[in-house]
């Protein structure tokens, strides 16, 4: 792994997540540009069956230990830091997630390496890797080099298609022993708390009407519900809406919520910040209504109108209803 590009695979409950494939696609691009190999690093317990899907990498390195069966921040950090310490990669890629970011920064700190977060895409220029990150709610792109001898980066969705990282080919698997010290840790996984049994599984819906801060208050939710009903779809929301308690967490779309790929996603009063975009940018058609013409959502929506949500939605609902009656 030394001097290579290494993707620390993201897993959840024994499954490799979609983001890992995006990371592999990014890693492949970097590895090609740097003329080096791409390794996938897999941590967990009884991981053999997960290795099969990581074919985009040149090889898969595993550390398998019962103490690693569920994500434990200190344990995972310790393993990665130890392994990277002995076999330092040129670029270490982590997922920009609750699990990836917990350990990426610690690993970078321990290696004395710089770290770039929220990376979308990478390039190589003159044999040096470069990052491009989306920050400030998606309003600013920051770019720069990833200096050697080692640099860490966390990867967000959107820069590469997950398909690019899914290769049907078995990569050779190597096992490394778990480092010492996994029994003397100060964090311990206790239990999962399952999400509440939801009314609706929004990931299975073809039509989603989603509301953001732009609806201003709970009372205006009704107009979104009406539009959803007229279209035969359901209502979802971005983080601020769920945090306020206007919709249950089962309706949250975004990084911390559900990832949805409906036929139509109507984003009402949603700015399109990366955390939300992660949950819906793969929708077939995104219609964005946001008063602010500069809202980041217009950067990846298909259709948009810079009008006031509260004024427009009733007009649209009316139109839909008339079409259905006609």
């Amino acid at each position, binding site marked *: 792994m030394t001097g290579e590009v290494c993707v620390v695979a993201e897993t959840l409950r024994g499954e490799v997540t979609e983001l890992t494939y995006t990371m592999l696609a990014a890693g492949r691009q970097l590895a090609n540009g740097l003329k080096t190999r791409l390794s996938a690093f897999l941590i967990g317990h009884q991981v053999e069956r997960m290795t099969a899907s990581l074919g985009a990498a040149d090889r898969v390195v595993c550390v398998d230990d019962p103490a690693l069966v569920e994500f434990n921040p200190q344990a995972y950090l310790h393993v990665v830091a130890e392994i990277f310490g002995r076999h330092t990669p040129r670029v270490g890629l982590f997922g920009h997630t609750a699990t990836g970011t917990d350990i990426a920064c610690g690993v970078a700190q321990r290696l004395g390496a710089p770290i770039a977060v929220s990376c979308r895409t990478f390039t190589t220029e003159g044999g040096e890797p470069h990052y491009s990150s989306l920050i400030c709610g998606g309003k600013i792109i920051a770019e720069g080099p990833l200096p050697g001898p080692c640099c860490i980066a966390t990867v967000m969705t959107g820069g590469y298609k997950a398909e690019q990282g899914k290769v049907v080919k078995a990569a050779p698997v190597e096992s490394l022993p778990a480092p010492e010290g996994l029994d003397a840790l100060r964090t311990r996984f206790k239990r999962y708390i399952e999400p509440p049994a939801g009314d609706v599984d929004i990931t299975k819906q073809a039509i989603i009407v989603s509301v953001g801060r732009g609806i201003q*208050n*709970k*009372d205006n939710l009704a107009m979104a519900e009406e539009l959803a009903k007229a279209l035969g779809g359901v209502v979802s929301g971005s983080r601020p809406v769920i945090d*306020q308690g206007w919709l249950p967490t089962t309706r949250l779309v975004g990084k911390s919520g559900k990832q949805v790929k409906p036929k139509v996603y109507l984003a009402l009063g949603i700015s399109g910040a990366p955390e939300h975009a992660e949950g819906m940018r793969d929708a077939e058609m995104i219609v964005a209504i946001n*008063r602010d013409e500069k809202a980041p959502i217009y950067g990846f929506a298909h259709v948009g109108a810079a*009008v*006031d949500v*509260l*004024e427009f939605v*009733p*007009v649209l609902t009316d139109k839909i209803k008339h079409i259905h009656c006609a």
Partner: protein
Amino acid sequence: MIERINFWGIPHGVHLLGYVVPISCAVVLIWRLGARARLWWKVGRPERRWDHIGLRLRRVAKYAIAQVKVLRQRFPGFAHVAIAWGFFVFFLGTALATIDADLVRFLRGPVYLGFKVLLDVFTALALVGILLAAYRRFLQRPERLTLTRAFSFSLGLVFVVVLSGLLTESLRLAAVAKDPMLQPGWTPSLAWWTPAGWVTAQIWLASGLSSAAIDQLHLAMWLGHVALVGLLFVVIPIGPLLHVLTAPLNVFFSPIDRPIGRAAPAAATDGGGAGTLRAFTWAQLMQGDACTECGRCQDACPAYGAGQPLSPKKLVLAIKDSLAPTAKSMAGNGMPAFVGGVVEDPTAWACTTCRACATECPVLIEHVDLILDMRRFLLAQQRADNQLTGALSNLRRYGNSFGKSDKQRAKWTTGLDFKIKDIRKQPARTLWFVGDYASYNPALTEATMAAARVFQRAGVDFALLYDAERNAGNDVRRSGEEGLFELLVQKNSVAMNKCEFQEIVTTDPHTYNTLKNEYPWNGRAVQILHYSELLDRAIREGTLPIRRKLGCTVTYHDPCYLGRYNNVYDAPRRVLEAIGCRVVEMPRNRDRALCCGAGGGRIWMDEGQIKERPSESRVREAAGLDGVQIFVVACPKDLTMYRDAVKTAGLEGTIVVKDLIELVEEATREENAVAPIEAATTSA
């Protein structure tokens, strides 16, 4: 010459009861009243309300004697006034009689006759009033009245007191009629100076009772009357009749030191606000005892009408009910919580501060001040809903409730084809203080721009504060955030003090109210105008050319902060007439207008449980008027609230909501000018 005979027909010695009973019972009355009043001072904060005695006495004459507010409702008003004035006259009559008996004789001849007819007519009126009141209480049974036994007893007691007085006099007249020597100078022709008494006397005269029997009956009736009067005295301070004493007191002590548009200052205790009764002033506590439970405040309250947990009447009575328990527990340290205990949090938050309650209240209770004190407490305790605190956070950080940058405040001006002056750089006669809603709400931009065009057409020399303008603070104060209000006042004042202007105009009545009544101008002569006043002036002075008469039939909704708070009712109506609109009044007009429900920070709060929105009730009221096509408003919040209400009430196509400025804009537009693009919501 006829003259009054003191204690006619009462044996000497027995007549002393006529002094002993009323005086001793009056002592009990005063003692009981004092015991109650002592609680106000024991529990309540101090407050100075003994100044301007002359003005206060004049107010007592107007509200407690002439009872002008009671008469706002004709039928019950008449009944009450008949009873009350009856008793004023009885009291006066007794005083005159006592002077005549014990000091100087003057009740003789025409003076005596005048005295008699006055007493007699008012006796009859009082009885009529009582019967009408009984009809109202026992047959009509309106919801707003408290129909308990205590009230029925009081009415009954008052009835028998007056009746016994009438009967006593009628018996005397019957006796004198049979033997005129019993009152020298009396002739049957004088009988009609006591018409009610004389008519009643016919009963006795026709009954065939002997003179001796009539004498005895008279004595018995007199004793009965005296006893009943004594009973009345001792009962007044402990029942519904307490208002007879406390209402005039409440009127006397009612606040006169500030315009009604200026909220009472916060108490200095712990960020202000009332958690227990101890934080109210003694005068506020007295209100609980002055309340007559008439319920007019409740009937007028938009929150109550919407099914929300606020009844102004119940709130005031809660003070009355909690006073004694609070006083009792003051020795220990466990005073009962008022708000959060007897009164629940949502009650305090449901109020729109529209003042319909205080405007109706016959005894001048200030309900809104109570609500404000409670809100100040609740907010300091962090017991407010997140939407409100979110809006307040935005106001604190950005100076507007929308959470938008203060630099965007004048973005609406980009739609105009002319540039408005910046008052920070150039002087102007008129500063236009635009306000949050008119500036930031996208649905209102059209109306704001219309105002700009109209001002220009009227040749007004006007300018804006642009980014330096902040929310004026009216509703921030009424939400209970006194500190933030002061901060906003300071920021706006600092900005305005650097600028040169003579008057301020605003399209927002809330802004108007606080600038006019609460901002410290420190002697600077600044006139504050609502735009309807400015237009009214311009039309009168001929500086605003009206190019066409609109010829439509409209109804006009009086905004709470323009009408009830600041008495501006006619200027907008004159403007409407000047532009050729025929104004048809809604049943609830002028100071009876029904609040749209947005005031007092309500527009920033969670709507809560609603049975029927006041705004929907209002547009239905307007739609019920024959031929009225347009519902005219003069406040940006009214504009958004009523446009929404027309939609949710399903009245689109029946009635359309327009701001006065939009109509004036139409009426003053140049010939052949292109109409500005109308938002889809203003479909005519």
